[in-house]
């Protein structure tokens, strides 16, 4: 898998991997947004990956996350999780 290099884009927020910016409509990326759903910013990446996989396989009950998780590959989920993990809590 290709390694994405964002070092060429200085003075910017880290580029969100595909899908991540949509996730933040419910799971805030910005510190000022308070949300009733689980906050992913600053959460360990492995914890996010485990949860999304469980939603995707149906092991973990969900309302919408089961339907959304099925739209993402393991690599995409890993990238999004790493992006959230790197955000300030």
């Amino acid at each position, binding site marked *: 898998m290709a390694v994405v290099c964002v070092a060429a*884009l200085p*003075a*910017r*927020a880290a*580029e*969100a991997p*595909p*899908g991540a*910016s*949509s*996730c*933040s*409509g*419910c799971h*805030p990326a*910005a510190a*000022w*947004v*308070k*949300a*009733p*759903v689980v906050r992913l910013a600053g959460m360990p990446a492995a914890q996010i990956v485990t949860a999304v996989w469980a939603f995707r396989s149906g092991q973990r009950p969900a*309302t*919408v996350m089961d*339907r*959304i*998780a*099925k*739209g*993402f590959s393991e690599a*995409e989920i890993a990238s999004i999780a790493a992006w959230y993990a790197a955000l300030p809590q």
Partner: protein
Amino acid sequence: MTTRRRFLTGAALALAAASPPFRPALAQGAAARVVVVGGGFAGASCARALKALDPRLTVTLIEPNPTFTACPFSNLVIAGLRDLGEQQFTYGMVAGSGIEITKQAATGVDPQARSVTLADGASLAYDRLIMAPGIDLRWDALPGYTEAAAERMPHAWKAGAQTMLLRRQLEAMEDGGLVVMSAPANPFRCPPGPYERASLIAYFLKTRKPRSKLILLDAKDAFSKQKLFQNAWKELYLDLIEWVPLSAGGKVTSVDPAGLTLATDFQTYKAAVANVIPPQKAGRIAELAGVADRTGWCPIDPTTLEAKLQPNIHVIGDAAIAGAMPKSAFAANAQAKVCAAAVVALLAGGTPAEPKLINTCYSLVTPNYGISIAGVYRPADGQLADVPGAGGVSPLDAPASTRAEEALYADGWFRTLTAEVFG
């Protein structure tokens, strides 16, 4: 001639002073100018995302209204279950994040000169233009339904005064009155919206005027979350809501505001309260800019969300033809962030990454009964297409606890989205 730039930092000021009036040499490091037309879920989101991704950009938001009134949840206002004030947001935090706000209407776009004309005659140059004009109602599409008619038969499809007008009419109606709604053919803003509205008006009638009835005349035979709505109606509003699909003669062909009647090819319905949701098109400025096609909507590239009909102009939100993505606030916000990333990449001479987008929409059948639809999208065959195997609606056989949970999530959805855009 040109307005703008009231609060520049010293560094940005130096850059601005070095810029020629048109088309700055980006390669030399001048601040690129991005203009956003429309301060709704799409436009305001995009302006903020642009500034967050590249603080050096000069981002101008053109929006004449000092207050934004959100459509999602406005059906609760109509049913008397929510205050209109809870739908309203100002642009203070948008301005506070370094975005110049031009408080007037855009009246024209010159794609060749890359400039936007404003209501006061001034023009604003751009390197990239984001158009998020939302919808306009098609006053030529339904005989009898004029702007004046909407004062008697509100559409309430742009939230604000129309929302309150419909609410007051329902409040004033005698118990036993007939409410007649008319829903348009696809595409239109908020596909499940008419059915959520019918549900919540029925809730209002059931609790406040139980001898009344609601007839929903529809120009379609199928609609969003249909089975979920119909099951709920059977359970909760059996004698209250009558849905008349296209194939049963549901398409309204003319209205008469004086007599409060709606006519189909087969029958004329006399309403005590009439809610006409007319056919729609992209906001007029899209047409003036030459980015709308003959359908009245704007075809876009699925990766950059750039208009297919004009270069350097991107169209996001309800005005765009976004393939499988519905015209929803969440979709508008998702598109805005993808568009911002694409614009930043393009201005830097790069190639935007292929995006992936999500939509999640909740509808309320009662204040404690929520249902949802979700989708995941990616570019395919020149469109934003559904990712196979993902998305779908709430389960048909869910217990009341799930419906209650989704109603809570609906509320969270609104608060999170509006906080991200306006907070």
